[in-house]
């Protein structure tokens, strides 16, 4: 119910933004925190750089507002733009970003609470160890873990964001867990 109201509000915001760009501020205001934390957590850039990327994301979203499919959730659409932008930024700066430590504390905590993972990984390990392991994860795996365990998105929503079939998303999450397990051994 809350989701539906949220979606209706987003659609209203989009319509108003198309009429007058001033109202686009409402969209930015609503999603900027989420987008910024998403960028920082998966790419390991600093706040300033994250803001630059976020600016690009919101500008691209604005230019493509008419391409937003109202049958889909607005945040999935916005996050799919964010995904593309972060991936492209990551590719351009791969070498520089490789060794950057990511603020994976929250992800480590959530992953630690994940029952299946507790069974899979012997979680007697310290949280910091899990955090370090997350830092070593492949970009694509880190992204799906972030979307699943921090943003709490469903497989369908993640599929819409990363533009991959739902089954592939499932496989990615399983592989991500497996890779984590390997790193932590």
């Amino acid at each position, binding site marked *: 119910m809350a989701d539906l109201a949220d979606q209706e509000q987003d659609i209203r915001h989009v319509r108003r933004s198309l009429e007058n*760009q001033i109202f686009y501020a409402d969209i930015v205001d609503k999603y900027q925190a989420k987008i910024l934390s998403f960028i920082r957590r998966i790419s390991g850039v600093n706040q300033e750089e994250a803001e630059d990327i976020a*600016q690009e994301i*919101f*500008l691209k979203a604005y*230019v493509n507002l*008419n*391409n937003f499919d109202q049958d889909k959730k607005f945040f999935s659409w916005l996050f799919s733009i964010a995904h593309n932008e972060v991936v492209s930024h990551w590719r351009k700066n791969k070498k520089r970003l490789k060794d950057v430590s990511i603020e994976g504390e929250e992800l480590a905590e959530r992953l630690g609470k994940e029952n299946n993972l507790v069974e899979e990984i012997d979680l007697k390990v310290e949280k910091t160890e899990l955090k370090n392991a997350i830092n070593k994860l492949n970009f694509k795996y880190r992204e799906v873990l972030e979307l699943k365990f921090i943003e709490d998105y469903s497989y369908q929503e993640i*599929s819409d964001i990363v533009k991959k*079939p739902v089954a592939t998303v499932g496989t990615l999450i399983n592989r991500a867990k497996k890779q984590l397990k390997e790193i932590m051994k």
Partner: protein
Amino acid sequence: MNNLISKIQEKIKTSKIKPRPKWQFTLIAILTWVLLLVLVVILGLSLGLFIELLIKHDIPGYQRFTSFLQAIPYFWILIIGLVAIILVFKFRKTRKGYKIKLSYIIFGLIVLTIFVGFLTYYAGIARDLELVLENNAPGYGKVVRLPQDVWFSPESGNLYGEILKIDSAQQFILLDREDGIWIVYLTSETMSSPRIVFYPGLEVKIRGEVIDDYEFEAFEIRPGFDTRPKGAKPFCLQGGCR
């Protein structure tokens, strides 16, 4: 945080950024689907053309496999491969395309190509296209191995050409594809369809062996690829004329 909002608002204002109109997205979507359709048709036509060429080659059984390998238009396959990659890539970029697994898309593409390929072959479209390409497209013979070329390898026992003159029921003169003039000998064991009517100008495929310089003994004679009469008077061989 609010700094980001004002930065974005400022950028939109100063750079006069505007949302792209809806019709542009609709047009792109339509063009994408048209492109996909065209690419599927190209793939299907190529397969139809390949089937047409293979069947047209009409190679004797014992040479069929080698001929099949020779008939494969590798360059064309490379181009078609690239087309297929574009097709898959474009499809995945459509609104719902990413939801389907890559393996399913490839499987679907293969099935669709086979369907269109056989359809164009059986509808005769591939045949017409082959004739058009053969007669009008320069370089076509370099991309694909034409049936005439497949049949023009005297050392392998295949000869292709046009009858210049019929000397007798046992021998005729043949002009090959490289303007070589051959004396072709027929024996009582030479096989030919009773429906063949030999006449100067007729193109024929001959299976046999080279017995001397530009002398060929025919074991079997089949009609050539262009059997349209060229106005010459029919000549019946060994009583096979109807």
